[in-house]
């Protein structure tokens, strides 16, 4: 990112004088004079003791070293107290004023937040800028003002020369006035442009491209996760609306056939078997659908869904969950974590009991599952935990697992859940 602005670039163009830029340069420079004046007004407080100290040093009254030192320290102390605050305030105004110089890029403050005012390098860059505005700007402004004054006074000088019947003076004065008009405009624009470039350099943080890309990547991952969730819900709906209804109808027909067939007829055994298989399939399909997109979770929220899966679990599960709803993605990830952890507790850890907690701590949902099994869970084996960690990461959270051999296993998911 360069610190060039449109005003500075306009100066080098051929049609500069016919454009709006000379006038914007004048406006920018004029407002610089105002800002500079205000800065001097405020700085006069700490400067007063310093000037007094210099005066004392010059006059050398009795004990002048001590008095000068006290005055000097008072002045410096006042500056240390006032300077950073003034610098921060001025920096805000200056960032806003950048637009006058045609610098329309976002001008983010370079303060990082956190940390103190005095420890942030951005503060001291702003103080440096403040001193430049207080010391250098008036010199430049003086030069410009002088040139401007010469231009403005040209008609009076001409009048004077005519009255004094001095054609040579008249010629030079007129020429000077005419030549100075574009010079003043060029100077104002160049000075304003350079000033604005300096202000951007010292007062604005460089947009961090890497950070911006990371945010974009995280967003795209979150979008992907959301898309997967939407797809899951669609599949659940299709299975429910089509497959489940047809299966119920089929099972019912088989039930009728079974009911009306004499038990000793040749087809009875086959029909009975088909009927039982269809019934088992109905249960399996319902469990499958529940796993894809748990309806309880969607309609009643995380606590109800956790209680449901805990009740259906083969081991004793204690649930302690806050009520309250979260975003669909957060709820889906949290619930998937609980389901996976409980399934692992039964299948792999040989646990007899487990405890699930779901708490909102600040802006984070913390879900933890602890079982009393034999531990030794390895996230690198099997895709369940890895997939879960990926989903948690895509939702901006993280998954932690502690599972020493001998147990217990603790699985913890932390997910951001907004304000």
């Amino acid at each position, binding site marked *: 990112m360069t610190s060039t602005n449109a005003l500075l670039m306009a100066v080098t163009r051929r049609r500069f004088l016919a454009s709006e830029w000379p006038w914007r340069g004048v406006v920018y420079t004029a407002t610089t004079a105002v800002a500079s004046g205000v800065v001097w007004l405020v700085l006069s407080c700490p400067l007063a003791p310093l000037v007094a100290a210099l005066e004392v040093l010059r006059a050398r009254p009795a004990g002048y070293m001590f008095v000068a030192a006290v005055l000097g320290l008072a002045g410096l102390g006042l500056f240390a107290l006032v300077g950073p605050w003034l610098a921060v305030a001025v920096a805000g105004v200056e960032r806003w004023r950048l637009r006058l110089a045609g610098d329309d890029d976002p001008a983010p403050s370079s303060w990082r937040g956190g940390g103190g005012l005095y420890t942030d390098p951005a503060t001291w860059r702003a103080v440096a800028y403040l001193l430049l505005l207080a010391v250098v700007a008036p010199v430049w402004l003086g030069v410009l003002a002088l040139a401007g004054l010469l231009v403005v006074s040209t008609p009076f000088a001409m009048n004077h020369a005519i009255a004094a019947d001095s054609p040579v003076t008249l010629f030079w004065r007129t020429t000077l006035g005419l030549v100075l008009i574009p010079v003043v405009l060029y100077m104002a624009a160049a000075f304003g442009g350079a000033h604005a470039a300096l202000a951007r350099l010292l007062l604005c943080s460089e947009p961090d491209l890497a950070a911006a890309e990371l945010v974009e990547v995280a967003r795209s991952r979150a979008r992907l996760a959301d898309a997967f969730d939407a797809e899951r819900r669609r599949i659940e709906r299709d299975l429910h609306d089509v497959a489940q*209804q047809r299966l119920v*109808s089929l*099972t*019912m027909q088989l*039930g*009728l056939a*079974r*009911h009306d067939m004499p038990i000793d007829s040749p087809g009875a055994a086959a029909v009975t078997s088909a009927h039982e298989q269809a019934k088992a399939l*109905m249960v399996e399909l319902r469990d499958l659908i529940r796993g894809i997109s748990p309806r309880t979770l969607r309609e009643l929220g995380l606590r109800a869904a956790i209680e*449901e899966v805990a009740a259906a679990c083969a081991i004793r599960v204690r649930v302690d969950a806050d009520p309250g709803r979260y975003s669909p993605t957060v709820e889906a990830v949290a619930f998937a974590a609980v389901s996976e952890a409980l399934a692992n507790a039964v299948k792999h850890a040989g646990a007899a009991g487990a405890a699930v907690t779901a708490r909102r701590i600040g802006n984070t949902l913390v879900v933890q599952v602890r079982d009393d099994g034999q531990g030794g869970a390895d996230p690198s084996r099997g895709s369940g935990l890895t997939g879960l960690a990926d989903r948690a990461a895509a939702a901006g959270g993280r998954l932690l697992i502690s599972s020493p051999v001998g147990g217990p296993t603790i699985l913890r998911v932390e997910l951001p859940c907004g304000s």
Partner: protein
Amino acid sequence: MRVVIAEDSVLLREGLVGLLSRFGFEVVAGVGDAAALVAAVGETEPDLVITDVRMPPGFTDEGLRAAIALRAATPGLPVVALSQYVQHSYAGELLASGQGRAIGYLLKDQVADVAEFAEKLRRVAGGGTVVDPEVVRQLMQRGRDPLGHLSPGEHEVLALVAEGHSNAAIARILVLTEAGVGKRIGNVLAKLNLPVSDDTNRRVLAVLAYLRGQE
């Protein structure tokens, strides 16, 4: 017995019509949404209404809400709600309507066992209450506090009561004496603070006390 069926899946509706005819019910109307159900009941004045829970246009709980409205308009109208899963909203309200008499809430899985299903429909038409054990289990889960006071044995008995079984039937299923069953039910009623004076419908009230607590 004259029956109105509301079920949006044509395949399943025709299947149900076949099943009911086979077991001696007379299907006077088969419709596909809640509005048509209300109209058909007004026209035909059936002895029993069977309705799907999730129907057009919203596919949420239209059938349940229509059933509640029908029961409000015609107190005592026997209604059986059929659902693919346990619908929590309005389920308690439906089961509590009309003192819990002549009401059923069954998961669709139940239609697979055709003869038992027909028998449950008859029980509801006769003024009984039949609630799918799965429905009871899930609805009870939401009211953890009263459940916490019941022992597993009492819980078991209550689930069977909710299904509409008599004391004798429960005794057979649990391999208990009838007196033992009576004692357990007595414990349940006591723990749920139900009035002892009401003897005709205490069993149903026991279930409803749960369900109402959850709304």
